[in-house]
Structure formats: C-alpha cells, structure tokens
C-alpha cells in the first residue's frame, strides 16, 4: 500500500491529495455550519452569556 510513498513522484501528487482532503473537510464543516438553524445558532452563541450567572 505504501510503495508509492517511496517513489519519487509522490511529492508531485501530494499537493493535490492534501488539498483535496482539506477542501473536503472545509466544505463539509462549512455546509454543516451554514445549515445550522438560525434560532439554534443564536441560542448556542449566547450560552456563555447565560443570565443565571450574574456579572459584576
């Protein structure tokens, strides 16, 4: 499985492979973030500001 890693042209395909992986992760997380329901998004963003904890 790893034999291509040991050959010289590995470095030349690496850029494409790594970019593809990153782009997939980025795309999936972006889609998930965009599709988050607005009311849920607002509720989550306000969690640290929960009024049950009084500020001084």
């Amino acid at each position: 499985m790893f034999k291509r890693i040991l050959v010289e042209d590995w470095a030349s395909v690496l850029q494409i492979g790594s970019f593809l992986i990153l782009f997939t992760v980025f795309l999936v997380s972006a889609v998930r973030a965009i599709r988050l329901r607005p009311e849920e998004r607002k509720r989550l963003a306000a969690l640290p500001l929960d009024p049950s904890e009084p500020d001084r």
Partner: protein
Amino acid sequence: MTSTRITYDDKTVRLFLIASLGWGIVGMVVGLLCAAQLSWWQMNGKFLETISFGLFQGDGLAYLTFGRLRPLHTNAVIFAFVGNMMFAGIYYSTQRLCKARTASDLLSKIHFWGWQSIILAAAITLPAGLTRGKEYAELIWPINVAVAAIWIVFAVNFFLTLARRNEPSLYVALWFYIATILTVAMLYVVNHLSLPTSLTHSYPVFGGLQDALVQWWYGHNAVAFFLTTPILGIMYYFLPKAAGRPVYSYRLSIIHFWSLVFIYIWAGPHHLLHTSLPRWLQMLGMLFSLMLWAPSWGGMLNGLLTLRGAWDKLRTDPVIKFFAAGVTFYGMATFEGPLLSIRAVNQLSHYTDWTIGHVHLGALGWNGFMAAGMFYWLAPRLWRTKLWSANLANMHFWIGLVGILLYVGAMWTAGILQGLMLGETNPDGTTLKYEFVETLKSIQPEYIFRSIGGGMFLLGFLLCGINLWMTARQGTAHDETVEVAVAASAHDEMPVKAALLGRPVVLLLLGLAFIVLWLLLPPHSDKAALFLAFLLVVTAVRAFRREGRQWNDWHERLLHNYLPFTALVAVAAVIGGAVQIIPSLIVNREKNVEGRLQELYTPLELAGRDLYVSEGCYNCHSQMIRTLRPDVMRYGRAGHADDFSHLGESLYDHPFQWGSKRTGPDLAREGGPLAAGSTLVRSGKRDNKWHWFHFRNPRWANADSNMPAYPWLFEEKTDFKSLPNKIAVQRRLGVPYPAMSADEIRQNAIEQGQAIAATLFQGEAPVSYEPMGDATPEQLTAAFAERKVIALTAYMQKLGAYREIPVTTPPKPVPLDPDSYRRRPPAAVTQEGSPVTTTTTTQR
C-alpha cells in the same frame, strides 16, 4: 420546567489560578536568566562568586548552566504556567457551560496536587541533568507516567461533568477542550514511549529519523493542542463574557474548529525542512502549515469581531485590552508560523533566533496576555470583590506590550541578521565570509534588548501578582451558587456507533480512502479506485437529496451528544498522525540509509553521548547538516561531495540529536577516523587537547564564545556501572551491538578512556591539571580514564562516523531517495536486476 440549585467548585479554579501565576513567574525568571546567559557567560554560575562574597568558587555551576535551565524554562512556561492557566479556565467555564458542578471534588484535588507535584519534580530533576533529551519532552520516564495518570484523572473528571450536564448543547469552547484532552493524550503517550535503563534514565523507542519525526509531530502539536486549542476555548468563553455580547459568528467557530483540528496535526514536519527527512514529508508539513492560515485567521477575526460595539471598553477595561491584544498576537503568530514553514524562508530562519522570536510572539503575546485577561476577569468573581487596581492592570498591559515588542523585534533582527551572515560567501563564492562566532558576536546587542524585553514582561506579571494578591485580600473566597434549569430536551442518547457509522461519515471516509488509493495504487488499479470514488460521490449526492433533512438532524444531534462528538474528533486527530508516522516506520530501515550507515558507539562513547544529552548540549548545537550549500560549505568536509547529513548517519541515535537552534556551530562532522595505529583513539576536526581546554574554558578557544565552562566534568566520574544495562536496552531497541558481558563492557570503556587520557597527559606538550599538581602522567591517565570529560571527548570524536554502504540494484519502484533532487553517488548506480548486495567499507 424544573430547576436545581448548584454551587460551582470555584476553589479548584482559584488554586489553579494562583499556581499558574506563581509558576509563571518562576518560569519567566528562569527564562530571563537563560537570556542573560547568552549575553554573559558568567551567568552560568560564576556570578555566584560575587553574590556569595567568594564562598562559591568556580567558572560554572552544573545546576545553573544554560543547557539544563533552558528545558526548565520551556517546561515551566508550557506545562506550569499555561497548563495551570488552562485548567483554571476549563474548570470555570465547563461548569458554567454545562450548568453542573464538576463531577468529582476528589478527582479535582488529585488533578491539582498531582499536577503541582509533577512540576516540582521537573524543577528538581531538570537542573540535576536528568532528561530524555527531547525538547518539551525532557521529563524522565517516572514523571511521564505520572503526567499520563493525572491527565486521565482530568479527562475522567471532565467527561463525567459533560455526562451530568444540565445544558443539552455543547458550546464551541467545550469542543476545543475535548480536542485538547484527546490529542494531548495521544501525542504525549506516543512521543514518550521509552525503555527504562534505570529509575531515572530511559531511551526512546524511536531512533534517528523516526524519533525526529515523532518528536516534531509532538513538539508542533504541543503548541497546537496545549498552547492553542484550550486557549481558543477560553477565548470563545471569556471574550463574549468580557465584551457582554455573543461571539461574532457561531458558524465561523464551527468551521474554525473542524478545520483547525484536522489540519494542525499534519504540520509537524515543517520543523525538519531541508534535513534528511524524506521530501514528501517535508512538502506535507509545508502545505498543511500554509493551509493553517485560513482557520487561524478565521478564529482571530471571530475573536476580534466579537468586540464590535465594545471597542470603547478598550479605553477603560484592562480585561478587554489584554484579550484584544492577545487575539491580535494570535493572528500575528499564526501568520508568521506558516510563513516560516515555506522552505525558502525556512532556509534562512531555521536554527536562528527568528524561530525564538516567533515562539515568544505566541507564548508572551497570545498565551501570556490571554492568561492575564482571564486572571483579571476571574479574580473579582472568585473573591467576590472588585479588582484592587485597574490602573495597575493597565500599567501591566503597557509594560508587557512594550516588553513583547522589544523581545520579538530583537529576535527577528538577530535571526535574520545571523541567518544572512551564515550564508554569505566571499566574492569568489567558494568560501564563507564569516566565522560562526563572528555571527554570534554581531547579534549580542539584540540579545541584550531581548533580556530587557523579557524583563519588562516579567515585571508586568509581578504587578499582576501584587494586584491579584491585594484583590484576594480585600475580598473573600466565594463559590458561586446558581439556580439552573434541568435539561428538558434529550441529549446524550446517540450511540457512538450510530455517529461513526452514520451515512455521512461512512461516505466521507470511504470517498477519501478511495482518493488516497487512487494516488497510491499502481496503474489501472488506481483508475478503478478513482472510479469507485466517483461512484461514492454520486451515491452521496443521491443520498443527500433523499435524506438531507436526516443528515442535518444527524449533525445537530451530534452537538448534543458528547461521546460521538469526541469519537469523531479522535478520528480527525488520528488520521493526521497515522499518515506521517506509519510510513516513517518503513523509511527508517537499513536499506534506506542513503549509502551511509552510522557506526556504533563504543561503551565509552555511549556514556559520553548520555552526558551530552544530560548537559543539554542539543539546546545550542545541532547535528544535522542541511541540504543547503551554506550548511555543506560550513560544516561538510573538504573533498566530499554532497556532504550533508544522510538519513543513515543517525539511524541508531536514541534519542536523535538534530537540534532546533544553533547558538553554537553544528557538530555533525566534529569527529573523525581512528588515529593512525590506534583502534581506540580518533582524530576528529580538533584534537583531544583542544577539547580538554575548550571544556575547561571556552574563551580559551575564542574570546567571544558564550558557551559555559564545564569544570565538574573534570572532577566527576563517568557512570560505567549502568553501561551494561544501557547497551542491553539499546539491543532491544534494534541497535546491533554484539553480545558483550558486563566485564567486557567496563574493560572496553576503561581501555578507551586510558588511551584517550594518555594522548593528553603523555607524549609531547602534555596538559596539566592543577588540583592534581603532584601526580605523574601515569597517575593522571589512570585517574582521568574514568572521568566525564574523557567520555564526552570520546563522543565528540565519534560524531559523524559512518560506514559507506554501496546499495546496488535500484528495484522497481525506485527505493526511497529521501530528497529526489539529491544526486545519487555514482557508486550506488549499478546494473538493474542484479541481486542486492551490501558491502561495507570503512569510510573514515
């Protein structure tokens, strides 16, 4: 809706806060001493003569040398200062975000006191010279075991708190904490795998290239997952609290988290650019480092934009000041990091103070200022009072800010200047223009500015300590009690299996797997893999159109289920590690040594190597001639083409000693061949007498040297008793030592010691040793044969010794050539198809 009354455990938070501040000041004081040592060699112990009014006499004190104190500084700042600060922030925010008290007070106590005991043990063992010899992983194996145990206690306490939470949703700060706990555990365990030789000493299971790769996979991600992700979690919690408004974009925080966690783990190899690390790994490290620009800046912008509408508070609120500057420094440091990972830039910056400037931009600016902001926000709440003096906090801010800028500016200037000088040649281009020590001398003014900057930063934290102390005194320790709603909606009902085997995950992982197979498989099978990847994409699109709503629900359910979420984070972290580590296990085999195979150390040389590690010589000296012309010109041997460090030259080094900073010159070719007519004494770049005088007083060799003197090496005996066990462990690690009895090992060491000592005390122009002024040359030879200076000299004279391995028959596919642009030596090219034969010749 039912509600319940909760009293948070704020005592643990207070303890961690105080510990962070206290240890932080200790770590900074040690750092300041280290900085001064680089300007004035007397700070390695000789200054004690003055302050003790002559009670202490000597050119140096072992416990105070730079090589031993620098690891204490880095460990104290990372694990004691930032570690305790991180725990304070996590314990405080996790309880509030979960609306639940920490699961177990007992575990919290064990965590706190266990962690402080570990720090105390480190503060004792590191100056004593007990070290594993790997940066930020120096602590000896019993302490490593304790760290792992305490980390598990922390993790259990944290996850139990998540399990008992009254808030169904997991806020993004908790995601970062989860990633921290999981990934640090994985990195720490793998990089600390060792075989003990005694209670205080061990050898890492990895050697040479493998050890280098594992070390920097760990070292880089210690920055990522110990100094960055937990502080980002703290930023996402405390910044909105301080600004009084929600995070700018929760969507952006989701993208920030997943991109950062996934990419960071891949970037470690950028610490090894231009070394004998295979080129594809170097490229991998560089590319993923460049990709880090996006999520890092996404996070920084999210933090700064959270302050929108609250910028007026910058004028009055020191907390906002510290947070705004801290996040800005995060942006600067994460811009500079990828920049330094570009091979062309790294060529100049690596091994210089530019890297030190970069690290401190993050440590002082990001970690230090975020810590200060959090402390000033927490203290009035933990002691139920107002901050004692906002003016003093403001003064801390300005003194610290100027200190950081002075420090970082000085290090940038020093690094770039020295890097340029080291690479500059005379007009004919055949010789280098500057001696190493000339470049060191030229950056001395910057070193002094660095000490001033660091001193100012320390002064700021002393003011912080006074301010918090007075705040605590005027208030009373207070554990907050609140009424919280008990979670009404369902959470934590999703099985881990359902999350990991959910259709989105399975399709994504399979798709990625087939794309990787397309890259790796031979012709035709790769096309099949590509076709299958295409089919999976089509399947995914059709499934999404059919069940898109369920996929959406799956993700939202994930945010309410901590165990499946944790499992997915683990998958993301493990993939990046496995891709780098597994191939390196294949690479580091003897057939892939680039034609050079390291010669084994004799018992005495091995003892000398352990002394080299113990004294922390790797903190200033590298053993890696990079594949760069200036490096080869400066450190390579005349008449040897392409005399950079080859992969096989450090194959048996447990631990590797390639180094990361050159305060002194590279030592990869310091040694040499056996002297004519001798089987025990080597003739390196410099003779044994040179090393004798140099270890006693480096200024004898060069007046501008800032290296410490090592008088104790002349007085203390080498530990020969432990050698049989050490060699037995080396054999178990795969170092091909022949079978030797304990007596043979000891005899061999003494004979070589005597032979080297004889070259010093007998023959022409013998050296003298004042404390034994009446001794005959024979007595001196017998006495010094077992002393540390001789063992260390033996090691120095062995550095760079290797045997040439003409590898024949490049098979198909062509076996590893770690850097494809390197020229293969003519001897290595032979007829294709002939059997692989390995012949050994003595090179040196």
